[in-house]
């Protein structure tokens, strides 16, 4: 969907800005709000770009820089921390060879920290896109990543 169509769907009103930015970002293959898109949005909604950037950067779910196809968000809040989220971070770092805020060279994964995901009954927790995974161990993390990579390969094969 184009920017103007998304704005039209929600209504051209500042009150709908967050939902509009959510939709724009979800539609982008690199899961971010591009500068040229914000320029366009600024024209359509008559909001200064600086204001749009300020709003987008306030919220942790928006990104201004390109991200991978799958976004891993590891919870670092105290309940997850005391049950070993640091070890999970180590496992992810080792497995993906990237740090927080970075994307793998193949563009498949971006690693981020997040505050509580509301699943702390099964801490430590991470989310990958819309799915939340809990009671994580190093072994589980590797199995989950393996599964996603496998699915990706299978999907690519099917497309051929």
């Amino acid at each position: 969907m184009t920017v103007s169509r998304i704005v039209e769907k929600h209504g051209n009103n500042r009150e709908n800005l967050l939902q509009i930015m959510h939709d724009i970002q979800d539609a982008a293959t690199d899961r971010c709000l591009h500068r040229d898109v914000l320029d366009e949005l600024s024209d359509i909604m008559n909001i200064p770009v600086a204001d749009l950037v300020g709003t987008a950067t306030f919220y942790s779910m928006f990104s201004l820089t390109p991200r991978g196809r799958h976004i891993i968000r590891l919870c670092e809040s105290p309940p997850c921390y005391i049950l070993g989220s640091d070890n999970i971070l180590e496992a992810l770092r080792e497995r993906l060879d990237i740090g927080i805020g970075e994307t793998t060279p193949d563009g498949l994964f971006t690693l981020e920290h997040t505050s509580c995901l509301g699943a702390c009954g099964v801490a430590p927790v991470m989310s990958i896109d819309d799915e939340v995974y809990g009671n994580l161990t190093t072994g589980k993390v590797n199995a989950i990543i393996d599964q996603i990579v496998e699915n990706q390969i299978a999907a690519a094969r099917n497309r051929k």
Partner: protein
Amino acid sequence: MAQPRTVVMVPVDADTVTIGARAVKNRFAEAIGRRGLAAEVSVLEVGSFGPSDAGVIAAVQPDGIVYGGLSPERVDRIVEEHFVKGRPCREWLLAGEHPLPDPRATDSRHTQYAGRIVLDNCGRINPENIDEYIANDGYFAFAKALSEMRPDAVVEQVKKSGLRGRGGAGFPTGIKWGFCAAETGPEKYVICNADEGEPGTFKDRLIMEGDPHKVIEGMALCGYAIGANQGYIYIRGEYKLSIERLRQAITAARAYGLLGKNILDSGFDFDIDIKIGAGAYVCGEETALIESMEGKRGLPRLKPPFPAQQGFRNKPTNVNNVETLANIPAIVYRGADWFRRAGTESMPGTKVYTILGHVRRPGLIEVSGGVTLRDIIDDYAGGMQSGSFKMAQLGGTAGDLLGEEMLDVPLNYDALEKVGHVLGSGAILIMNETIGVCDFLHACMRFFAHESCGNCNPCRNGLRWLSVITERLKSGTGYPGDIEIMEEIATVLKTAAFCPLGQSPAGPLNSALRYFRPEIEKGIDVTSARPKPDHTARALATFAG
């Protein structure tokens, strides 16, 4: 459209998804479809029912049967036995110990505690079927209010019930409604605060996933009571299933004429829309939430004016937490006296807690205001998972740390206040001796420093420093005097921060010093000397990071 008579509910949560809950759910749908039973049996993904050791489970309703330890292969057998042959499959039946709530059962260990009020339907009815909600007295309160109660009588009933806000601050709900009802003018709003960002808290999510209509009915009653015709649910963007459930429930309620124009021929109009957040803890604060709903950065507003006078679109607005609103239908339908039978004088009714950390069965419970921390750990959470109790944090990361001496204080507003503590959001984080106090404090301060909106100086800089100092203490390299500096920063925050986010770190900090001062002092390297302040541009730039 005819509704399926039977529903299979598979809790798919962050834990069970990793052991194949979604595969089990899909297999149920597939096997039931293959048998041509799809019109009679629906298969539904739901949130957790509560603490359980039984692996992937599934509840079959209205039969009231729960299976545990499921795998896709076992599902085939269950579908064959239960749905085709019509007899429960004994092999994987969960007897007794299953986590499904039974509101009518009295708790054998705590007979003084009434059944559930908020979670009574969770796991027992199909949350996607409005008929089942109605069959369990759903929307009766709303109908009763519309047909035989004046708006001020509803406010009065809520006041009499003594219900206090479950979002953290514990403000009396009826009084808050009274403020908004007293405002004149045709345009008012009801907002349901479903931002739930307090670390350790996930009760609101499970209420919305398990019984969305209760929240909607609570909002509609609030709208009627204060004279508002529009409600909004502000929900965090991460809660995908809750958003879906609420959308579905709103559509169903509209189709039944329970939302919309001239509801039940009463002349009262009310509708609800959903606003989705984008990840910011401070947006749970009611005025920041309103800013965010207006499409702006979520910076808290100066109070007064309070939202009851000038809230959303600068109109009178009532903001309540999800759990608060979920209590309303029972209060209006059964009356304040009925509600007061549970709980204590200062905290009538029940409270939903999330129990976390080093306990055997973390999860969600709904109990009345008289239980103690010891009851919760030993009876509900199955005891410590490992090690022995060292400390607990009550009410999320903004909550106080409690030492062993507080194990027997009843968890209600008054009893806690007497010993200088607050209840907070309902999260109870239990820790054993493996967790260092400084290490834990650092995790808390890091959280606050990250979530500060940066609007006011005490919060922006003070939290940053608390994070730096606690990190030093945690590694045993604190400077002499660090503790005093922390105390000073906490005092400045408490008195000068613009909003409660900046004020709240004083809670964990001061309570940690109260119970664990000697341990925190060990984080100081007495042989070290504080370096001269480095005010070069580079040093400041590094700090600003």
